[in-house]
């Protein structure tokens, strides 16, 4: 059992130069379920690492309470919280060989030697470190160091894993492998995992639920599908998905029609109830790039400003209602910049947001 509860957690830092305090985490309240794989995402500097460090007990919250397993842990020493962690900056023991780095935690726990050896061998194998066990951290490449940091956590068998961008310096292939290993690890150990990443694919594939943070505040906690399909506010909508959702100001002509520049677009039936309240007002219309389709019969005609070929898919940049808009299309359609093409907005995938509160409409 390892639930983690944040109860009104605030963390401030002294910000001497500005003579004030800086709030890194602001009144965060949420609960991580037992055995859950929870992913933290959010822009750089939003407080993800700080949250993780508070769970670990490395940073003392300024206000609020943290419970692990229902027990208030404000005064529990990190080593007694039964946690393994991958530090964003690795924090490898520079004087120890990779092997010693990996086995240090186990030795502290007085695990039997043969078991340690086995675990280290296993971890270093799946991390591709088996040839490097005798080296010191300073003799490794960046990605290798990161793998050691990861290995140091996964040899352990704790109640809670904290991963702070554990794969950011690895190549795509290795990252896919690692993702699978981590998912397996989660299954096998049944530990609660809190995972920070900037990689949306990671977040989407690994997370059972995702916490989206911004400027220290929790924006939404939901399953990946939910987040993708029903972002609670413009921030989440814009943050999840790559390239990001296109936002286009729209005017609600009626409950079933939106006006954007010269174009009139239909509101899907199931959304009309919500739209009604906004008739004759401005709203923010959102649509993901992958929901703008190349369609010779499409109603929207645009001139392509930029065309980017990314292998499996292409990105089209064009202007729409004075906004720069991106569309993501399948890889085979080559288009030249400057060409004029017809497109369709998949209106059933559209999102609407209140312009003032930035909250989702419907």
């Amino acid at each position, binding site marked *: 059992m390892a639930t983690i*509860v944040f109860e009104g957690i605030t963390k401030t830092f002294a910000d001497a130069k500005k003579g004030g305090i800086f709030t890194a985490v602001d009144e965060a309240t949420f609960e991580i379920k037992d055995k859950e794989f929870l992913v933290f995402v959010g822009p750089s500097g939003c407080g993800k690492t700080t949250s993780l460090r508070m769970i670990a007990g490395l940073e003392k919250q300024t206000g609020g309470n943290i419970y692990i397993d229902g027990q208030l842990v404000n005064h529990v020493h990190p080593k007694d919280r039964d946690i393994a962690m991958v530090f964003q900056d690795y924090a490898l023991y520079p004087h120890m060989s990779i092997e010693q780095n990996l086995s240090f935690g186990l030795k502290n726990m007085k695990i039997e030697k043969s078991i340690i050896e086995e675990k280290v061998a296993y971890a270093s194998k799946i991390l591709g470190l088996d040839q490097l066990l005798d080296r010191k951290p300073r003799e490794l490449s960046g990605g290798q160091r990161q793998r050691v940091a990861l290995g140091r956590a996964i040899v352990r068998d704790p109640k809670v894993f904290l991963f702070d961008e554990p794969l950011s310096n690895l190549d795509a292939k290795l990252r896919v492998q690692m993702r699978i290993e981590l998912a397996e690890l989660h299954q096998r150990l049944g530990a609660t995992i809190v995972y920070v990443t900037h990689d949306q694919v990671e977040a989407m594939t690994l997370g059972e639920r995702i916490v989206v943070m911004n400027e220290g505040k929790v924006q939404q906690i939901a399953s990946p599908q939910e987040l993708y399909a029903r972002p609670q506010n413009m921030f989440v909508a814009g943050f999840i998905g790559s390239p990001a959702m296109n936002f286009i100001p729209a005017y609600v002509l009626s409950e079933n029609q939106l006006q954007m520049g010269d174009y009139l677009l239909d509101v899907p039936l199931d959304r009309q109830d919500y739209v009604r309240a906004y008739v004759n007002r401005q709203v923010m219309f959102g649509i993901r790039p992958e929901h703008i389709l190349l369609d010779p019969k499409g109603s929207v005609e645009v001139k392509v400003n930029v065309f980017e070929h990314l292998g499996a898919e292409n990105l089209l940049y064009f202007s729409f209602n004075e906004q720069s808009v991106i569309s993501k299309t399948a890889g085979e359609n080559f288009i030249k910049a400057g060409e004029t093409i017809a497109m369709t907005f998949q209106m059933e995938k559209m999102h609407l947001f209140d312009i003032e509160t930035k909250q989702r409409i419907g």
Partner: protein
Amino acid sequence: MAETVQVTPSKLSLFLRDYGWCYVFILVPILVFLLFTFIPVIYAFVMSFQQYHVMGSTFIGLENYQTMVQDEIFWRSMRNTFVFTVATVPVSVGITLVLAVLIFPRGKKVQTFFKASLYLPTVASGVTMALVWFWIYDPTNMGLLNMILNYIGIENTMWLGSRSTALFSLILMSWLTGHGAGIILYLAALGGIPKSLYEAADIDHASGWSQFKHITMPLLKPTTLYLLVMGIIGSFQVFMSIYLMTQGGPNFATTTIAYLIYVHAFEYYQFGLAAAESFALGIVIILASVFQFKLMSSDVEF
């Protein structure tokens, strides 16, 4: 939110849980300190209000302090001490730094040679040191310094014998000796500066001097602070070299406060007065050290 009922531990036990081991880490030095430094300092503090006598001291209030401030020689030795400190500490630390920085980039063998040659002489007995310096400062033309100066046409100088040069001679001596420990310390600190910062600085077009000024110096701050504070303490309390070389003369030109304290305590058994002077000196040193800490407070952490 938590369902289980918490047994609220007492404040003290929470405190001990959070910080107990911190105090354990400093326990032994603290005990030693209490017994051999703190209690004696308190004792000496009491003494400074007494006419000390083995068989029973008498309280005389502030009389020692009065005597102290009215003593012209006290002020003169304060001045000497101050001049000596200001003239020696920064220069010595500077020289130490320069020597360390010159040694640091050399190959292992060369480095070891220089390190050993600069540090190990500190083990030479004080007697030989004094002999060497008496030879250097020999007032006749047999003296090294006079020999050199004669060569460029300057008359013999009575280095330690003349009021105008005696203090300078001691200062010069402190400039030229006793850097060994500092060098070793700086070298250890230099080794701790990540090489990658110099690489970054190279990429940033930093010249050798700019690297020294903007990378090396700031990152050596903790060591520099240590050397400065210890240097200040040492030179405000300078005693041995004066005792050996000049006995405070001529005409009190090299009487420092520590030497005066020694004289008062042991020549005249005026322990109360000596204690008062010690506290006056202590306060000056503390002020100077606080100033140093303020100046170099920002920690270096990687």
